[in-house]
């Protein structure tokens, strides 16, 4: 489970997130939607401390992952990222073989022997619905795969180290409709084992894949509710205007 309690976030003097409180329940998919610059990606990245790499940022409030404040000084970022995997907008495989891309995280963390790694790679590729397409070419370069396959490889890489939470920042925006459909179907299956938070510009995608949706605008969480409710009868006028395309 991930939870935000009174989050305020600043890029220098720019107030990017304004008093955000919400929680994402285990084994659900939560989508964050909103216009560009609304803070949804910033909010997502808080949960595996990706924003730490940016100069001049400031955070107040608490970010909890499985009940633990991940910004507490005792928390090691590398340990946090074993629990919280992340998939980005553009597929970013390593310049290595398909097998090594998935095995990489396990090797870095010194996990298990040769057969353990081989099993884990196969499990992860199966979970990412990629195994059947790559099982005969595991030693080939990851760059030989299509964009959609590369993105599923990145998902497999994230799954290999057994996180409990998966953050996805526009994971299908660079993909064609067929690859997008495969990623969406994968998200639907993965939620049985993982807690998933996804940022997307595609409102129909949010509607198709998520259980709950948060609508952000100008750094505020305007509405956070069941996806069915959000897309049928949103509470706030601003949400209605955005999802019906009247502004934004």
């Amino acid at each position, binding site marked *: 489970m991930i939870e935000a309690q009174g989050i305020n976030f600043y890029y220098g003097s720019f107030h990017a997130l304004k008093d955000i409180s919400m929680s994402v329940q285990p084994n659900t998919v939560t989508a964050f939607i909103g216009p560009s610059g609304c803070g949804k990606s910033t909010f997502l990245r808080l949960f595996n401390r990706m924003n730490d790499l940016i100069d001049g940022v400031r955070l107040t409030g608490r970010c909890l992952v499985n009940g633990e404040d991940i910004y507490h000084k005792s928390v090691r970022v590398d340990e946090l990222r074993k629990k919280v995997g992340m998939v980005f907008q553009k597929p970013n495989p390593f310049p290595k073989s398909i097998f090594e891309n998935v095995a990489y995280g396990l090797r870095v963390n010194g996990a298990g022997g040769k057969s353990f790694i081989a099993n884990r790679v196969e499990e992860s590729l199966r979970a990412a619905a990629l195994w059947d397409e790559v099982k005969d070419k595991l030693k080939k370069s990851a760059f030989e795969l299509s964009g959609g396959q590369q993105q599923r490889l990145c998902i497999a890489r994230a799954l290999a180290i057994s996180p409990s939470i998966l953050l996805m920042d526009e994971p299908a925006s660079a993909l064609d409709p067929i690859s997008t*459909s495969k990623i969406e*179907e994968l998200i639907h299956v993965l939620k049985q084992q993982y807690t998933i938070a996804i940022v997307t510009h595609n409102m*129909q995608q949010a509607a198709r894949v998520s259980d709950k949706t948060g609508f952000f605008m100008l750094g505020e969480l305007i509405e956070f509710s069941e996806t*069915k409710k959000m897309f049928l009868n949103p509470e706030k006028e601003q949400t209605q205007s955005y999802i019906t395309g009247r502004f934004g």
Partner: protein
Amino acid sequence: MKHTEIELQRLKEEVSRMWKLVMSQLEKAKQAFFSGDIELALEVTGREKTIDAIELKIDNDCENYIALYSPVAVDLRLVLSLIKISITLERIGDFAEGIACHVIEESGHKLDAQLIDDLQLEKMFDTLINMLSDSFVALESENTKISGRIISKDYEVDRLYHNSLNVLTTYLLQNSGDIRSGLKTILIIRKLERIGDHCRNIVEEIVFYVDAKVLKHGGKKKAEAALANSEKNGIFA
């Protein structure tokens, strides 16, 4: 199967469940009508609320499906058809309940047996039950080849309806003491005729879903011509 397809399949199954219940209601209403079985009539009236509840659920599920999955092409036609079919089935359920209520209200006042034979009410009931069952098969098998046969049965129901009015008029002229029962019987016959129309509407929806053709009101071309004519004559002015 994708989860969106599974959801669509569930919607279809929900409508099938409603369909079977409505068919059973109509069959029981028929049995109660001919046998005067009050218990059976009460069973029909008691089940009406379940049909209403299923209709509401289908409405809600279809709304959610459209809102969440933005269906297009054949999927959109299916969802639109299912909404209309469930509304129509609910109406047929109402008519079955109306017939059952008639049985309860008129207990002890049986119509003349020869008159019932002459009115061909049993044939009317059976034709309607066949229409409902054939259109169910058409949707389940996504086969519209039998749609013509189902629609022709509606013409048969209309013929029986007009014939029954003549029969009843003749009978009441000779049996003025039965006028009240006669008038109530007309209401039943009218309900049966309307069920035929509704079955036809269902078939039209199935054809719209499967073949993307509009049959109602004589089809799109006729409707467009009528609209153009109305505009020419200043009806909307």
